[in-house]
């Protein structure tokens, strides 16, 4: 197990290196003089000179990258061009809302996707299976921002049950926090629920067709024990990986969902900084998102290895 963990950690290094090259390279896509573009709206010559010095723009590209990477490794992602706040500080203040939103969205996705997937597999070919397949595919096909608008229309405007926008920190009032995130998290989780349902169904079908299920049946175990202990337990293993991979979709979807429900999270931060041409914040957010996503995937791989000893070679 220790060797497996070390191997997985070592494999992260080249990946992180590529991510850093991509994020650094984004800067080079800017049309015209990078310093002037980075200076944002007001082209203050002192600011431009500062940027030139900070990013070592008079040096060769490789040197620029080395300096930039050095800063990043020291936890310095630069400053917001707009209000001079360190990018890391901005990310730290915005991250909790997105984490909370994504966690509840994942809870929705699992709560909807897993049971329907299992039921669908157990009743393969029935109208129930057919229906949940169509609903699952529909869940995959709905853009989260539109679903958000429709739910606001129905639940907030027509029925007045939930607030249409806003966010309450869990440290202020946990109940209100969950209430404010109930609708946005459902919207965000709908896509993932569709994916998880489809994967649960196929994993469950594979598991239930295995020889050990026949053996369990021959032993005279009850249907419930067979499904829960032999079928589902085995179907669970691939589900761990699928769910972890979907975290990337959640982080992507959060950008749009936060926009619709005006939640002051990570997604709003990247969108606002795109509008304000605050490029170092955009770079910082992309880098952090990739790092978080990789970390969560690593944890999922470890969970997978714990659930399935065959993986730890």
């Amino acid at each position, binding site marked *: 197990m220790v060797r497996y963990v070390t191997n997985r950690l070592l494999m992260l290094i080249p990946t992180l290196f*590529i991510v850093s090259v*991509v994020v650094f390279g984004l800067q080079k*896509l800017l049309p015209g003089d990078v310093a002037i573009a980075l200076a944002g709206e007001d082209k203050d010559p002192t600011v431009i000179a500062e940027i030139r010095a900070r990013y070592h723009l008079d040096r060769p590209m490789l040197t620029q990258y080395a300096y930039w990477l050095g800063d990043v490794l020291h936890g310095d992602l630069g400053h917001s061009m707009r209000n001079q706040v360190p990018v890391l500080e901005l990310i730290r203040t915005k991250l909790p809302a997105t984490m909370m939103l994504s966690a509840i969205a994942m809870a929705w996705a699992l709560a909807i996707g897993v049971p329907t997937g299992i039921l669908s597999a157990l009743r393969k070919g029935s109208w129930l299976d057919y229906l949940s397949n169509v609903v699952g595919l529909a869940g995959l096909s709905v853009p989260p*921002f539109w679903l958000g*608008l429709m739910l606001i229309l129905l639940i907030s405007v027509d029925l007045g049950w939930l607030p249409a926008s806003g966010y309450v920190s869990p440290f202020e009032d946990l109940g209100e926090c969950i209430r404010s995130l109930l609708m946005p998290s459902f919207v965000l989780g709908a896509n993932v629920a569709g994916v998880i349902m489809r994967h649960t169904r196929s994993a469950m079908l594979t598991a239930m067709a295995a020889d050990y299920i026949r053996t369990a049946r021959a032993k005279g175990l009850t249907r419930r024990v067979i499904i829960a202990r032999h079928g589902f337990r085995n179907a669970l293993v691939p589900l761990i990986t699928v769910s972890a991979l979907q975290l990337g979709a959640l982080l*992507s979807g959060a950008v749009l969902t936060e926009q619709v429900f005006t939640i002051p999270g990570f997604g709003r931060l990247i969108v606002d900084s795109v509008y304000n041409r605050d490029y170092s914040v955009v770079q910082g*957010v992309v880098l952090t*998102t990739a790092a978080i996503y990789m970390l969560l995937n690593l944890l999922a791989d470890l969970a997978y290895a714990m659930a399935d000893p065959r993986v730890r070679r």
Partner: protein
Amino acid sequence: MNTFALRHVIGADSLARRLVRSAAGSGGGVIVLLFIAIACLAPMLSPYDPLATDWGALRQAPSAAHLMGTDDLGRDVLSRIIWGSRASLLVGVLSIAIAMVVGVPLGLISGYAGGVVDGVLMRITDGLLAIPSLILAIALAAFLGASLVNAMIAIGIAAAPIFIRLTRGQVLVVRGEQYVDAVRTMGFSGLRIISRHVLPNILPVLLVQATLSMADAIIAEAGLSFLGLGQQPPDPSWGAALDAARSFIVECPWMSIWPGVFICVSVFGLNLLGDGLRDALDPRNL
């Protein structure tokens, strides 16, 4: 998908027949054909000029004159949806074309060459896959500048790693097949083996992925346009229409309902078609 399928099921007419026979394949196919027809015939179908503003008919509810109402500038919502289908279709097709033009050759090289080349290419792919696709697309669109063409490029680049991975995996499967060994012993060059013998055999799998990726690309385009990073005003796009509708969600729900319905239905159609294609190509369903 095993190679048995690739060699024996691909007869184009039998594939088409199997596709039509499946509910998913035919249903999805019909929706996708309708979507393409609307985009192509936009000038004939659209009742009004999609850019024509009418200050006497601002934010009117659906009526006989305007079947889906008018927007905040008095433009006909239906006409803008019909013309907006062009942005979606264009981005869907071209961004996936970009993704495949970049991804498939790299995947072929990676899978066929193996060794160091494969290692380096796979690490690059891992790096690109580590950045969630929409976030990568937003960042690319932000740095390249906001336009429909840049959105297309951004979505295409963000989708390319999937095709590198898929192609490589398929090449690894096919490479071990005896017919590939056979042509290799006949002394054919690597390029010829790849283009004549490997690529045709993995094409069906790529086709399924292309269909499903196109569905994702259309959602991504709508998302980027919703954020103001895709189609620029006044040109119509489904995502941009939803962005504009957000301010009038209570007063004019028709502005936000209809563009979304069109996104959902076309994406649903593509997903359905992709599923149908996959089932039709699956040898277990023979």
